[in-house]
């Protein structure tokens, strides 16, 4: 049912998006790799058919190590997929067990090998630090494994404990113990240093790539660019009639299916973003990147120079060693990256 609805939604947008072109496609969120080979390939080909997707577009599919098969990979590749993102989290079986993942180190090794064999060379691996039972040694071991396999891109996220998740509840009632803040920070510092010394450039807070393999799709988010989300609970941002707008898709499956099957867009919470808010979003997202906010791009979009607009804060933050502003860019220092939220709160005040 969901698959049918998703295809209908894609077709529904065909006319609406006829004037726009897309440089990247990202199929992720949840585990698209559980769909069978035909369906996955059909989604990709449907997107390419209905939308104007660039010839050299980056087309990524997120997969879990335990749910990929040669036929899935091959049909994806035939459909045009050219980048695979594998959710590993950790190569330490004890750690994987504690967060309830279905795969182990061995499964991942086989999966990576399979992806490579099927002709993908642009592979990302997601790993995490600050997981229950994880030590710095275990984390570095994971990074070592992933880099030795030749992954071109590594995302390494510090665990965020979110209310309402089973892990949050388990930690609160003491069933699971997490490494403390300092241990996680130590892990992060060591891991990021390891990645830098192994040819990976930190181009965003949590993202590392061999130069040339940065994820174009995600870079678009950080440039506060337009994107169209399709499927359950996906998010979109677009300039519509001169106004910057954001919306979400229905997050309840029955609502989503009901809307799509009665020819409605499953859109929820469509809202205009005021120019001031849009401008702050550009700062908030841009400062996540190592290169920072491009001053010329910023001025072109928002009609004001970022340094002029935020002069007192930028001066204060420069003195604190948090930020650097040069002729072309405003970017965070390494320390600024560590305290990014505090930096952004200052921008929020203005």
């Amino acid at each position: 049912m969901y698959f049918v609805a998703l295809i209908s939604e894609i077709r529904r947008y065909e006319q609406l998006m006829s004037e726009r072109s897309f440089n990247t496609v990202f199929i992720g969120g949840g585990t698209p790799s559980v769909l069978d080979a035909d369906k996955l390939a059909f989604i990709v080909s449907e997107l390419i058919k209905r939308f104007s997707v660039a010839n050299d577009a980056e087309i990524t599919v997120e997969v879990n190590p335990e749910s990929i098969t040669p036929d899935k990979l091959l049909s994806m590749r035939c459909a045009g997929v050219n980048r695979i993102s594998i959710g590993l989290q950790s190569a330490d079986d004890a750690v994987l067990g504690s967060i309830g993942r279905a795969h182990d180190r061995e499964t991942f090794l086989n999966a990576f090998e399979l992806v490579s064999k099927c002709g993908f060379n642009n592979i990302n691996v997601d790993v995490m630090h600050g997981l229950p039972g994880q030590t710095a040694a275990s984390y570095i071991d994971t990074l070592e494994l992933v880099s030795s396999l030749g992954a071109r891109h590594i995302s390494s996220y510090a665990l965020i404990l979110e209310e309402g998740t089973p892990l949050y509840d388990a930690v609160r009632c003491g069933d699971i113990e997490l490494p403390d803040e300092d241990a996680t920070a130590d892990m992060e510092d060591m891991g990021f240093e390891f990645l830098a010394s192994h040819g990976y450039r930190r181009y965003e807070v949590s993202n590392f790539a061999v130069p040339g393999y940065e994820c174009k799709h995600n870079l678009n988010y950080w440039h506060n660019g337009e994107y169209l989300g399709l499927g359950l609970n996906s998010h979109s941002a677009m300039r519509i009639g001169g106004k910057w707008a954001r919306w979400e898709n229905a997050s309840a499956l029955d609502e989503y299916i009901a809307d799509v099957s009665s020819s409605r867009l499953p859109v929820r919470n469509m809202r205009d973003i005021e120019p001031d808010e849009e401008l702050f979003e550009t700062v908030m997202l841009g400062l996540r990147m190592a290169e920072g906010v491009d001053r010329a791009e910023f001025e072109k979009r928002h009609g004001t120079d970022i340094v002029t607009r935020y002069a007192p804060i930028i001066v204060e933050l420069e003195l604190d060693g948090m930020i650097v502003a040069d002729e072309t860019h405003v970017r965070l220092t390494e320390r600024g990256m560590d305290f990014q939220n505090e930096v952004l709160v200052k921008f929020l005040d203005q």
Partner: protein
Amino acid sequence: MSFPRELIRNFCIIAHIDHGKSTLADRLMQLTDTVAERELEAQMLDSMDIERERGITIKSAAVRMFYRHADGKTYMLNLIDTPGHVDFTYEVSRALAACEGAVLVVDATQGIEAQTLANVYLALDNDLEIIPVINKVDLASADADNAIHEIEDIIGLPAEDAPRISAKTGLNVDEVLARIVSDVPAPAGDPDAPLKALIFDSIYDNYKGALSYVRVVDGAVRPGDRIRFMHSGNEFDVTEVGVFNPRWQPVEELTAGEVGYISASIKSVAETKVGDTITLANDPASEPLHGYKQANPMVFCGIYPADGADYEALKEALDKLILNDASISYEPETSQALGYGFRCGFLGLLHMEIAEERLEREFDLDLVTTAPSVIYRVVMNDGEVRMIDNPSNLPSPMEISKMEEPMVTAHIMTPPEYVGAIMELCQDKRGIFENMAYLEETRVKLTYRMPLNEIIFDFFDGLKSRSRGYASFDYELGEYEESDLVKLDFLLNGDICDALSTIVHRDKAYGKGRAVAEKLKEVIPRQQFEIPIQAAIGGKIIARETVRALRKDVLAKCYGGDITRKKKLLEKQKEGKKRMRQVGTVAVPSDAFMSVLRIN
């Protein structure tokens, strides 16, 4: 035509918290058809939300009821409801002075408590006829005989024929009405003598201004009269007199023996002080009624807006609050840590808590309050005496010849099995044992002389927890006594935080310093640098804790679906920052100032 004086009965109800005073009052009003069933809100007389929630009476209230007695005559019964807490002893005494009788309600499941006893003694001092009533006899755990036994043994009142009632179900409550008529004397007083009216409470109304709740002792008062407050000397023209029905109902006059209110376009309750005597300006009484006292604040604390921008709003709220409660004092003060605020004085700790709660609730303010302090008497080397209510204003020890603190005599009543634990608590609070008496087999009365500053913090809580809630206590103020007091300061990253300074006895400084430092470590969030927390007396550090530096404050993931949420998180972080106070280099959450009050 005024109501025949011999058919008037003025009475109050004395009871411990939860012994059923308000429920009984409700039931009496119902039985006399003073309020229709459908109008009856539980606990009619406690009109403030806080009163209903806490089950206590803060302001006095009154109600007039008409009761048809078995003798065929209809009597006017004026019930004056009194506050029920040690902080308001003076108000209670004035309310009692307005009555000829008191109904003493004793909970058949609990027996007599210290607070009840204190109020019974006040009633006896005022020559009131006391009618004991045993309440809650419907409960399985009720022991009415024991309660009667206690009344006879402890107070020395005959109680054999005390009505055994259930205010909740209404059982035997009519017997109470009959006893009020038969036992309480009709008011004395001369309707033709010059006016003397005792103010037993005053309240502020947005339309009528400050109203005096009075018991007319002699004479009469009518609208148009020019009245004089004998202690303050202020004069006003009466615009309205009325009775409590229980809502205000204007009448033509109030005469000797009656209870009612006087409205005279008075701007603030500060001008119509409880205990003052009202007389006529052109035919004044020769002397006021006895017993007037200025109610002085005993406990002081700093009150600051959580958001500095709300200073004006706080000022306005305090202005309005004292329209209704003249016993609160306040004056502007500044703190390096908290900015602009007020040093406020209260009758006691409960009074302080209630005022804070009313400010936050009725005026929608977020407040930061500093630790409560008593007034210390500081004798300087040159003999000058200074009264210090704010620890930050304490002169340097080098200039001080001696310091004195206010003492109280505390009376504690408890079942004997808790005596040991309570004595330990009193000792810990620097109490000096004075007396222990067995009132009966199951009840001991302990008397201690204690520093007021030890009971304003958590003494009451400590007493309750060490006696499983069975002990009760009451205190009366005593003299100032010399004491070895020191100022305990707290330094955050090397800077003294004035709002945390407190005056303590030297023997307790170490323990307190360590406890507060530990607490601060818990409540101050990690920041970009390490924060040493130090407790110090003079220049000497007596305790130290460290808040380790924050290492990272960054959201790891931020993709298309996270942007709106991420922005909201930042907004929230910004709001949190607003609630922080800057102490030197350190940001301290507003709650920290209050959480250090609650340490064990």
